[in-house]
């Protein structure tokens, strides 16, 4: 009986792992798409947050983007695919972390693109996935926390161009 239980447990774990592994097909791609969409909304919303609040044109734009951003958060955190998102994120930040670490420049807050900021000073795709997991699931927030509020991302909170030492003589 005990052996049977063990076999059943192994079968269940195998089934679960097959389910996670199964996500690496179209389902995973769809999940990633949703996460990239969230990032785009997050950047757009953060950009509009920087304008004067009393401007009516911007307020309309911001309200509209904010709605999309909040809806996307809701879809990921409270939607019917919540467990799939969580499962994907857990795998991405642990087992699959190596493949996402190489993707530089995955900021989810607005970055002034006109400055020469190195992409390596911005979050990687792995860090972005970690931010989503940390903000929405670990900390149970209804928004992506800013880098300042995330312990593992604080060092990338205020990226600046790297200064050079003067080589000129005058």
């Amino acid at each position, binding site marked *: 009986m005990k052996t049977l239980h063990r076999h059943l447990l192994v079968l269940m774990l195998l089934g679960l792992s097959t389910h996670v592994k199964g996500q690496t097909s179209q389902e995973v791609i769809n999940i990633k798409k949703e996460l990239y969409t969230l990032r785009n909304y997050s950047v757009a919303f953060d950009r509009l947050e920087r304008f004067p609040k009393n401007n009516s044109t911007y307020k309309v734009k911001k309200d509209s983007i904010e709605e999309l951003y909040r809806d996307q958060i809701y879809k990921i955190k409270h939607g019917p695919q919540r467990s799939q998102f969580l499962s994907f994120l857990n795998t991405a930040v642990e087992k699959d972390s190596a493949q996402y670490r190489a993707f530089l420049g995955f900021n989810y807050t607005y970055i002034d693109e*006109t400055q*020469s900021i190195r992409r390596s000073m911005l979050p990687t795709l792995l860090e972005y996935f970690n931010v989503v997991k940390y903000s929405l699931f670990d900390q149970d927030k209804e928004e992506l926390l800013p880098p300042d509020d995330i312990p593992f991302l604080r060092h990338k909170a205020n990226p600046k161009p790297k200064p050079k030492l003067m080589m000129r003589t005058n």
Partner: protein
Amino acid sequence: MKQTSLAILVVISGLCLLVFACRKELDYLIHDRERVAPDVMESAQVWYLQQLNPDPSIPRLVPTWKDTWSTVSIDHGKLLVVPAPENYVAAKDMTVRRFFVFKMAGGGISGGRIVEFVGEGYDVSSNIDRLLELYRSNAIPDFTGLVLEYDVNYEPLSKRSFTDGKKDSRDIELVNVPVLDWKESLGGILPEIQFGEKTMSKEVHASALGCNPYEEIYNGVPSGLAEDCVITFSVTTNSYNGCITKKTYNYLSHSCPSHEGSGSGSNSGGSGSAGGGDAPPYGGGGQRSAGDKQPASTPWRDILVDGASFKDHLELVNNWFLEDEYGNNILDENGNPIPNTEISNCHYYAFGPNSDPNSYEVPWIKYVNSPNRSNYTELNLSEQIQVGDRVCYFIWITENTYTITHSGIVTEVDSQGYATKVSSKFGPYEPVEHHPRDVPASYGSMEPTVLIDDTTRPSRIYYRKYN
């Protein structure tokens, strides 16, 4: 009786001669000034000549050495003060005086600059000793106006504004605007209403997105100025919540190279010359300054006040990852974003690729963090700019560390060899044409140089490709 009268006459004449002969000493005595020892004066002259830009074609502000005196500044120690030629100031409630001020140390000269005092409803000439004593302080009793500092080549270094004796945060500066440029900024027409000391308002484009359009107001510009005249304005910029709300141009004076100046009103004092004299206009700019001059307007700088506003005014042709027409990432077979290796920035656009692997991050080899200037030579301030020259913009963190914030290609110069148009990319956005000084404030100062840790550093440097 006759002999007595004659004796009195002789005594009076003698006294007059004595007063005349000692007028300078008396002046020093009245103003509590000190005569300068010849060896110190000589040191100052040597130091001045060593600092001068050697280009003889550049008009320069010449010290009037014979009127030199020394004084003590509260925050700057013992100073040697040399008056400089003045221009007429037509604005009735404004007075301007300028001086060369050399810092004396150990029997020699350790530094020097030009200091310009602009009084607004404050008589600068009558209070000059007090101003020189306190010009480095944050409080000058009763003074309302500006203290502007330049290097000895009349290149701007710093400006400070005061109201009722206290340093304030008003955004005010002296700007020299050629009449021709001003006319062009108004669409080629100078309406009559601008002249005759009347006020003229011009509504300009909207400032940053989220800001309302603002007015430029011109006060007191005299009539009949020729196109080659240069008008000196005192410009006050009012802002609210990061938006410019008003720019007020108060006419101060003008100079015309080919005409006698028509400035009416009060002379500033000192050894003044009329509007058409040899003395460069107030506000600096009499010297050649980094290959470009102050533009009449700065539409890009006014609009692109914040990095967040760029996206609303410029087209982003290439982003970091490939996107479809809706801005969604195009993904590879694993659902990962595909880097867009065509994205490029200003440095690549102006100077081409940089083979130094530290200058870019794979796979974005066209987005270089520092321009490759190895095939270019740096132009000095006195050299005339040519079409095809490059320009780099600097922000200094300390006197020895900097970031190059922007690069561009010169596409137009004027007849005097000043760059008037540059083509550049603001970050990854499409290339645009603009005046070399008309770039976002995040790229650096509009002035040719900045003062950092008491050292002058360039805001822009022009480069020319080796032949």
